[in-house]
């Protein structure tokens, strides 16, 4: 009797899982030629999201500000003047970078101890003992940084394991939140196996919980067009010596898997949050809400671009928290 009941329960669970999976396929594969996007450790949240239609997200958290001691969060202190190799030029259009669209309208963020500057992360890569500017990331939890997939995984050489350091709110040669290293680098098979630029997003689970003091960005997905939605990109362009710079534009082309915008960026901005500011009480996400992961300079339509946060991607990165 007990065996029969248990067997029935197993059958029911399997049937539910199958139905949920079928539901997810039909939801997530619309306009998704590469197929379904499944999270392995966030099955329940995927199913919950599949039941919702239109828009879902999480708001950010502004953190507690400058800590008296970053080591309390597991971060390493970094003395002012710590040398990261890079350089500074006055304006990006001085050297004809395509991803500066028109005039260079970037504005420096200084100081970087307010939100979301402190939740914006300088990522460096150390090769042969020399540490250089590499990418930008954004806090999305106490110990999670999100970024572009190509900032954590190279199609030719593999994962950047042991090479990356993360400096939230870095400001030139000042590092108010210290630095953290990665416990795990993360991406998805759309990028690591298929090399699909539409799936070029990733992240790092850190060996610290500095997000509790820096705060973190929110994020949301919607199936609606985002054309005309304001887009801010705030990060660490390679021509600005580890300073944080920002520029605001709007979504120019709203693809199902990619957003296109005319924000001015330079190599080093990869991985920045492409975010909008939503009013308090907005459904899904209010405040600084990420829409995409900045990843590419100007493409065929004349705009810079990054993978869009879709329902399944949202569920996947929430599962990394």
């Amino acid at each position, binding site marked *: 009797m007990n065996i029969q009941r248990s067997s029935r329960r197993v059958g029911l669970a399997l049937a539910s899982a199958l139905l949920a999976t079928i539901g997810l396929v039909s939801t997530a594969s619309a306009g998704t030629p590469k197929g379904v996007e*499944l999270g*392995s450790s966030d099955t329940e949240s995927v199913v919950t999201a599949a039941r919702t239609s239109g828009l879902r997200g999480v708001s950010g958290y502004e953190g507690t500000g400058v800590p008296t001691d970053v080591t309390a969060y597991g971060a390493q202190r970094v003395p002012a003047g710590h040398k990261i190799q890079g350089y500074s030029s006055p304006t990006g259009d001085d050297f004809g970078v395509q991803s500066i669209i028109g005039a260079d309208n970037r504005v420096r963020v200084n100081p970087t101890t307010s939100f979301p500057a402190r939740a914006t992360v300088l990522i460096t890569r150390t090769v042969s003992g020399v540490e250089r500017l590499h990418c930008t990331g954004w806090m999305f939890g106490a110990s999670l940084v999100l970024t572009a997939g190509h900032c954590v995984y190279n199609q030719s*050489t593999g994962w950047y394991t042991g090479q990356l350091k993360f400096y939230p709110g870095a400001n030139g040669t000042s590092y108010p939140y210290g630095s953290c290293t990665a416990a795990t680098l993360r991406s998805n098979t759309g990028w690591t196996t298929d090399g699909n630029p539409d799936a070029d997003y990733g992240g790092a689970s850190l060996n610290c919980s500095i997000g509790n003091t820096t705060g973190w960005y929110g994020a949301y997905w919607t199936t609606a067009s985002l054309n005309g939605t304001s887009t801010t990109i705030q990060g*660490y362009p390679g021509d600005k010596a580890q300073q944080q710079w920002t520029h605001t534009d709007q979504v120019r082309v709203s693809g199902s898997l990619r957003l296109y915008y005319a924000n001015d960026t330079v*190599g080093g901005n990869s991985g920045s949050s492409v975010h909008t500011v939503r009013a308090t009480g907005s459904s899904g996400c209010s405040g600084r809400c990420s829409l995409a992961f900045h990843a*590419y300079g100007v493409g065929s339509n004349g705009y810079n*671009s990054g993978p869009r946060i879709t329902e399944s991607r949202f569920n996947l990165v929430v599962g990394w928290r």
Partner: protein
Amino acid sequence: MRRAHLALLIGVLALAACGGETPSSDADTPPPTTAQATVTGVVTDSAGLPVSDALVQPRSLDTPPHPVPELAVLSDQQGRYTWHLTPGRYEFTATKDNRTGPPVEAAAEAGRTDELDLRLP
């Protein structure tokens, strides 16, 4: 009954394994599988000496252009830089301290490494 369970389980696994964007991490260490082109070279100044920390940026010359990853690729102490890119035609420039060198073209092929030296004025 057992057969029905097995069929359901196979169905679930088959659907979960049908491609797309399943999570991956450096704990999985999958080997790189995509064929990219590599362009590498040395940045030198007008005296022919290597220049470190020059920002090297490619621009796609194909139509339509390939979008270029917005990584910060800086030359090392020996002036050497390396880019891994989608195969195609590119123009590379090096910039440092408000000096930008002349663009140099490369036809990058999958699985091949091209040497392309750059000069700063």
